[in-house]
């Protein structure tokens, strides 16, 4: 029980917390009004008309999160121009569950195996369609349909502050290739409500995942003026990402992130990139969300 002897430096740190809060507000990162406490149930819903016996009951307290974010990112893979797109934020989870760490590049995933430090489960990602009419750089190149990438992920926390994650997904639709993402995130909570994370990234793609976006066949070469290029699979990109998450109060949370990718291999050598684009790909995102509790009877 000696463990309990250590005095909690909570009071001593309150000045530091206030200073951080004031600094963030001064930087203009956030303007948000506090709402009702998340722990105070906003409303109660009646019990569902039926329940599946094999699934856990929906009854109980839940936390819903809604918000909006914006992402400033390349128009398309390999583009040198940026576009701003809105990102909706929505999640529902059991009240009190912390949600865990989530990186900006993570796709949708759910842990079916969860040992706490080791999590495994299915993962999915959506890749938007690329229309040649939308951008002058794509003129003469074929359209690529939207793709869904379905597969799985493995996440391992060597310690609480280091997450190693790998995703392996098979494309359906716009590309039928295989994509593997590897990432590491050092997660540093400054205080309970302010967390900074950062780490390296690496992506490998098979030929079928690269060719639709970076290959130029004879027909498209004639139409676009770009030389014929056969895009092969392999190391696709290396990069670095960082994220700041700040919980203003139990309801409001803001997050900002930046992800940098350096295209490699066929993606970097493609004439679409060398002549009309850039191998340096940067994404910047900002979002704010509001959480509230509700109850299902």
């Amino acid at each position, binding site marked *: 029980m000696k463990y*309990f002897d*250590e005095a909690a430096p909570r009071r001593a740190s309150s000045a*530091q917390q206030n200073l951080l809060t004031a600094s963030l507000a001064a930087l203009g990162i956030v303007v948000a009004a506090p709402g009702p406490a998340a*722990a105070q149930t906003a409303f109660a819903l009646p*019990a569902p008309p039926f329940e599946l016996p094999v699934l856990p009951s929906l009854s109980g*307290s839940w936390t819903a999160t809604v918000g909006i974010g914006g992402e400033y990112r390349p128009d398309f893979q390999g583009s040198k121009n940026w576009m701003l797109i809105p990102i909706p934020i929505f999640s529902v989870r059991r009240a*009190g569950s*912390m949600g865990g760490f989530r990186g900006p590049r993570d796709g949708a995933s759910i842990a079916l195996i969860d040992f706490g430090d080791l999590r495994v489960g299915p993962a999915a990602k959506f890749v938007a369609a690329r229309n040649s009419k939308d951008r002058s750089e794509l003129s003469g190149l074929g359209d690529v349909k939207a793709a869904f990438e379905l597969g799985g992920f493995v996440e391992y926390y060597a310690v609480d502050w280091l997450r190693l994650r790998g995703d392996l997904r098979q494309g359906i639709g716009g590309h039928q290739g295989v994509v593997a993402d590897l990432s590491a995130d050092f997660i540093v909570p400054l205080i309970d409500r302010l967390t900074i994370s950062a780490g390296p990234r690496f992506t490998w793609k098979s030929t079928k995942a690269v060719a639709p976006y970076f290959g130029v066949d004879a027909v498209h070469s004639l139409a676009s003026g770009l030389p014929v290029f056969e895009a092969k699979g392999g190391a696709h990109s290396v990069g670095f990402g960082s994220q700041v998450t700040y919980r203003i109060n*139990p309801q409001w949370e803001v997050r900002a992130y930046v992800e940098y990718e350096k295209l490699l291999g066929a993606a970097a050598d493609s004439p679409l990139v060398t002549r009309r684009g850039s191998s340096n790909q940067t994404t910047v995102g900002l979002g704010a969300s509001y959480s509230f509790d509700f109850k299902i009877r």
Partner: protein
Amino acid sequence: MRNIIRCVGFLAFLAVSDAAAFETRATRLQAIKTVGVISALGDEMSVTRAGLVPLNTPGQSVSIRSWGLDELVVQQATTLLNGRFRVQQVSYPRDAFAAIRESAVAPVNLARGDPFKAVVRSDVSPKGLDAYVVISRAKSKIGSGRIVQGIGFAEYRTLLASYRVIHALYEVRVIDGKTFDVIEKRVASPLGNIETMRLQGPSQLVDGSFDGPAGIETLRAAIVDLITRSLPLTLGDMHLANTQQSQ
């Protein structure tokens, strides 16, 4: 077309069977007259360090058998349930209940069914009550994903401060005394605390030290307070106790 008809038929079958399951649950709860209360929160308190901790920081546990928490829970639940049911004292092997663990593999839990059913069926006496109310440990996550369970004390370390949380995470099952099916199951919700750090169940940030016998008694009192405040709400949410009466 044939496939579509099959799908619609299957969905209709599911809807009818599940509606029946819902009806059964509601009516089964109403039909219960006699219940026995089983508490298996365990005799150990976990001590967890999360956040910025060194490599190889294992969790620890401390024996709290002398605290008599399970007896207290049975006593409190009996008082709360007595308004609606006739509560009978039951005997059960507490260690057998406390040893039950959920699998980390979610499909395994779905496939094998509720593990408490078998223990209630085989190890609880007297048999023949309408239902058994089983109160057992629940789990939550703290920090990036560290799992904490049942009664415990957790320290979350950040770069500039440390935060200490006590928790009493538990769930309540109502198990049919004849068929031993789980009629209702509910995880105790977080209390009305509005800290930025809260767990998926009754928990509270704490200050100060718990050194010496007085400190341990203070810790016990704080844990007991979490249980005392949350149990009426949980049983009330499950329509097992009159919420207004219990509050």
